[in-house]
């Protein structure tokens, strides 16, 4: 099996499954903070998916997308914390 095939048929499905499981948590909640961390994890797993995909397709350009995801995913979580704390204090 080639590397690309291995990634396509083993690694990516595993990561896909991880995405799915994480999404289930997001779906279930129950608290908004659970959803927030699920979202954060979803993005981190997304970075991984993109990285692996770029290996599979031999297209390094996708790594850049992963890089932006990794940099910015953070912001969403911070915004939610910011909001929740402000609201919580009220």
């Amino acid at each position, binding site marked *: 099996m080639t590397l690309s095939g291995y990634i396509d048929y083993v690694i990516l499905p595993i990561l896909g499954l991880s*995405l799915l499981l994480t999404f289930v948590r997001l779906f279930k909640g129950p608290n908004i903070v659970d959803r927030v961390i699920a979202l954060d994890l979803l993005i981190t797993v997304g970075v991984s998916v993109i990285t692996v995909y770029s290996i599979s397709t031999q297209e390094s350009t996708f790594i850049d997308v992963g890089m932006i995801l990794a940099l910015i995913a953070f912001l969403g979580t911070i915004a939610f914390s910011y909001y929740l704390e402000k609201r919580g204090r009220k």
Partner: protein
Amino acid sequence: MLIAVLSGLLFSLLYIPFGKYLKGRLAVVAALLPIGLFAYFCSFIPAVSAGNAQVFQYPWIPSMGVNLDFRLDGLSLLFSLLITGIGSLIFLYASAYLKGHPYLGRFYAYLCLFMAAMLGVVLSDNVLLLFVFWELTSISSFFLIGFNNDDAASRKNSLMALAVTGGGGFLLMGGLVLMGHLSGTYSIREMFASNEFLKAHALYPLILALVFMGAFTKSAQFPFHFWLPGAMKAPTPVSAYLHSATMVKAGIYLLARLYPVLGGTDWWTYPLIVVGGITMLYSAFHSIFRTDLKGILAYSTISALGILVFLIGIGTTQALLAAAVFILVHALYKASLFLTTGVIDHETGTRDVTKLSGLRLVLMPLAVAGLLAGLSSAGLPYTFGFIGKDLIYEATLNTGGAMPVILTSLAVITNILLLYAGLLAGLKPFTGSLPSSFADIHLPHWLMWTPPVLLALLGIAFGAFPALADTALLNPAAAAMINESIDSPLKIWHGFNLVLLLSGTTLVLGAVLYLMRKPSAASVTWMARFDHISPKHIMGRTVQYAAKSAAVYTKTLHNGYLRVYLLCIILFAIGLLAFRLFTGGPVQWTINELGPVTSYELIVAGILIGAMYLTVTTPSRLAAIAAIGVIGYCICLLFVFYSAPDLAMTQFTIDTLTVVLFVLVLFKLPPFLNFANRSVRIRDGVVATCFGAIISLIAIQVLNEPTDKTVSQYYGDNAYLLAKGKNVVNVILVDFRGMDTMFEIVVLSIAAIGVYSLLKLRLRASDKD
């Protein structure tokens, strides 16, 4: 001739700045224009009576076939002389009647405009040009009727007059355009050639219906007559002018003018006879139940107009000649009566005929005028009215079949009633004893009493010496109506015949009626009991009902609920798309060439759908926002899988920013609303699903079409060689399609500035704009 028409408009404009100088005696100067014009038109009498119509043409909008084509033939001349002649007297009369009125200048401006418009109507040889002036008469009369605009009734009645005549005007316009379209020309003269074609055309009844609507509304035919009595709110000179010779006769003029083009068929005759007949009888009957002098005159005017329509409907040469005569007769005596009434009103302060009597003692010349005009309207021998009446009877008698009996009896009854009305208006105020309250009344300024006297005397003069007018004016006028020459001198004496008998009967019965019946307030009240079935009230109620329906319609449709509006729009789109999708050809359900599906893509798609479900169902705002975040990220992953790194980057950053924005704004919002009940949600769900399904189906249809890739091929080939970039998407953004980007950042900038202003700007109460 253009100058003749335009001078009125010009003077009207000049009165706007200079009107304020028209005070006191100087106001007489205003009459110079109509007098001059009268003289000008008089100078055409010889030529026109010799059969030489005067033509003037000037191109205006040749591309539309609208040109300043004026044509002075017998009919036009008759009307022109009436308009300018009576106009002259009215101008003079008004200078005294409205002496010291603050808005006299404005009054003359309207009056000039009106006169010019009327001249335009009767002189135009182009139907559209005629219509232009036709509408101008409506507008200028609107201003004249509402001249006393502080008075609510005055405003209401002028609005009513405008509504009726204006509404008819639009219908008329339709008719005229249709005529013009079918005959290929808007020139009346040229339409004569295609009259057979028009009459045979399937749309001929439609043309007639539209033209009749225009004429009936303008000439106050039943059931559109009710605006006219209301229009009596105008100052008396206006009433005299509008209702004796001009405005209301425009409809008559139109019918007469178009007779050679459209007339002479059953479609023409019967509607006119029926409507004219009902009108003349109905209004004549009504006129005897009035006590207000102007009311009496208004209804008798309507009745006279009915007679004219009736005559034009009959359409024989005799009838048309009778119409021509009656136009002149009526103009003279009605103007005289109106002006007399004006003086009475002006001096005594009342127009109530039950209170007025014995005024001959103080207003002698007017008594003469009233008497003469009254007699003329009564049709006493040696008055012009007598000739008119004779001709009418003659015309009705000479129609074919069973018609003569019916028509003639109609005419006789009408004339009896009109006679009564004429005597009531012309005679009653001056006979009997003078009440003490009127004792110190004295004759007004001579400019106020000479015009009615002059008009009344003219009536007698024409009656005594019909040759003054017949071949010069009336025959050419009738000739113009039938588009053939006529030579039929008017005779005072026809010998003893049926006509004379009828005339006599009319006179006697009318006189008896006058002597027997005294006008009283009681009769007015009695008549008022039938108001609720009068056309005015029925139409009023219809209008009210229509307004109410309009309100209900508008409020139902435009109910303030945004979601209902959106639902409407979406249902509309669904309806159209579904209709087109499922009609006229097969719907493709599968895609011919499918790329492979991989597990992780499916998972991403599944997550997207799951997130969508969460978005739609969650009761928590934040969860919904997190869920749309997920949707965005899934799309981002799809973009990565399908070779769009730039898109993925942008989608992701923007998605994150949107989430941040939402989160920042959601502070303090109360709990998420979920008011919609289950059935509404199901309804919306069905609508939404239908829409989504249609979009999907359309996508499938499109995917089955081969795609032309020339343009993207070009970009790929030249991105580096010509535009020096390797990321083709970016090259498109900054070069190939850079203009999109340029203005897309403008959109962003506007949004940002908008946000800034929306949140920072606090208007003060003093900020008015």
